[in-house]
């Protein structure tokens, strides 16, 4: 009984690390823009489609797939940034969000024109295998994904917290007007953030899909949902919150799946999200200080 639970948690954390990466992408962009980019998932999906296309039509080389996936995701990311966020005026947050949804539909259809079948195989790094650790097991491709995700999280963390560019991004998302006084150029921060987030998205998409070893057009919606839920669970704008939110989502899903079925798994994650938004909108790890700041900024 308890071993089942522990096993579920292990599985959940492995899958959850993928959610964490997606959530990080959402959080970074939302922190900088203060607007929601719905087309993040679909742009990763289209990027992965381009990767699959190159796998099928150019060469059977995993590194080529990785490279094309990342490059394509970055290009699409820039397209979204220019069209939905730079061009649309800042006061109309609704317009940006709906515009990013419009691009979502566009990306999905482009993907279907690129590869019209329902599913395609996505290359895996190596063949599936079951590793045993005492009473617990882990599938090797998920373990690999988990380890790479962890590495990526560490690199990203170091980038955001240890480099000057990371510092500038954080300063801008913390207080855009104050950052202007420090000589930070807002629009280049925005551009940079989109590129970084697209690279993360490309890698995350590649890892998740290669563990699944197949790709479908539903991946866009799936990625947007999982990323959004994980971000909201952890609390908007907090990087560590996004990581933890992803892991928690993974663990809950794995357990709900084990004790229930796929539908119960999905219901439970949405139920968790809904109740949390009502009871604690700031997220499980939302900073208290954020609330203070909100009060201060609302001073009439």
């Amino acid at each position, binding site marked *: 009984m308890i071993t089942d639970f522990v096993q579920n948690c292990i599985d959940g954390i492995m899958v959850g690390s993928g959610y964490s990466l997606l959530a990080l992408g959402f959080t970074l962009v939302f922190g900088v823009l203060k607007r929601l980019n719905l087309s993040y998932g679909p742009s990763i999906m289209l990027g992965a489609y381009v990767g699959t296309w190159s796998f099928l039509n150019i060469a059977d080389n995993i590194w080529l797939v990785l490279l094309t996936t990342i490059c394509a995701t970055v290009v699409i990311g820039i397209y979204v940034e220019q069209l939905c966020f730079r061009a649309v005026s800042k006061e109309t947050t609704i317009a940006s969000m709906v515009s990013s949804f419009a691009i979502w539909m566009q990306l999905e259809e482009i993907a279907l024109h690129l590869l019209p079948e329902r599913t395609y195989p996505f290359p895996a790094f190596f063949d599936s295998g079951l590793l045993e650790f005492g009473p617990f097991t882990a599938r090797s491709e998920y373990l690999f994904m988990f380890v790479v995700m962890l590495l990526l999280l560490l690199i990203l963390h170091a980038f955001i917290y240890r480099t000057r560019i990371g510092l500038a991004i954080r300063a801008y998302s913390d207080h855009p007007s104050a950052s202007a006084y420090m000589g930070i150029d807002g629009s280049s921060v925005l551009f940079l953030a989109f590129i970084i987030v697209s690279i993360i998205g490309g890698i995350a998409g590649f890892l998740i899909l290669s563990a699944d070893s197949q790709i479908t057009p539903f991946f866009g919606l799936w990625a947007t949902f999982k990323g959004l839920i994980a971000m909201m669970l952890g609390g908007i704008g907090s990087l560590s919150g996004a990581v933890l939110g992803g892991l928690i989502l993974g663990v809950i899903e794995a357990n709900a799946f084990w004790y229930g079925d796929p539908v119960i798994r999905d219901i439970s994650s949405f139920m968790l999200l809904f109740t949390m938004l009502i009871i604690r909108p700031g997220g499980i790890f939302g900073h208290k200080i954020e609330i203070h700041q909100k009060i*201060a900024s609302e001073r*009439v």
Partner: protein
Amino acid sequence: MFDLRSISKSFGSLKALDQLDLQLKPKIITGLIGPNGSGKTTLINIMTGIYAPDSGSIYFHQQNLTGESAECFAQKSIARTFQNIRLFKRMTVMENIMASLVTKEKNKRNNWFSYPFTRNKFNLNKAHEVLEIMNLKDQRNLFAEELPLPLRRKLEIARALVAEPEVILLDEPAGGMTPSETFEMAELINLHVAPGRTIVLIEHKMDLISKICNHLVVLNHGEKIVEGETHEVLSHKKVLEAYIGI
């Protein structure tokens, strides 16, 4: 009538108001002055229910309003304007004025679906009256965001006036205006806004204050330092000290 008893309010580590007592005198213009950050706007926000005080109590006509919502304050016939002008941007001047009548109509026959609300004779007459007073008649079909700043300030006052409130709190009604516009505003307040009403006026332009206020309250660091007749207060030593330093 308006009675504030030892009101305190802090924002984090900043003490905006500290044990402040204030009794408004009815039917005159009370000027509220003090250097930047002395708590004037916070006080107005407390007097309109936007903030609840951390401690202390608020009485209006002997009725305890402490902790009530902004809606409740508004329905007690207290109106206000904002320092950073707040208008319904995507409504016309006329609609902005009508918006103020939505909850304060005295005309009982005009119920929910009395159609159409914005063409109702009773409301229209009232709105036109106010537009006439504030010289906004020619702009009545413009959108609020299309107006230049002085007219926006006037529109805010018009919106407050149309509900025929007992108390109007004016937060820098001449902020950002030129001397001639300020002069015009002073005339307007004196002739049309003030008669028969209790007015609180926050203003930095001392010319305006000394021209139209009968009574002054000076705040500094969230405390009331001086209160009294305008001319006495302005030549009070403490006031100058508050403004130009310790």
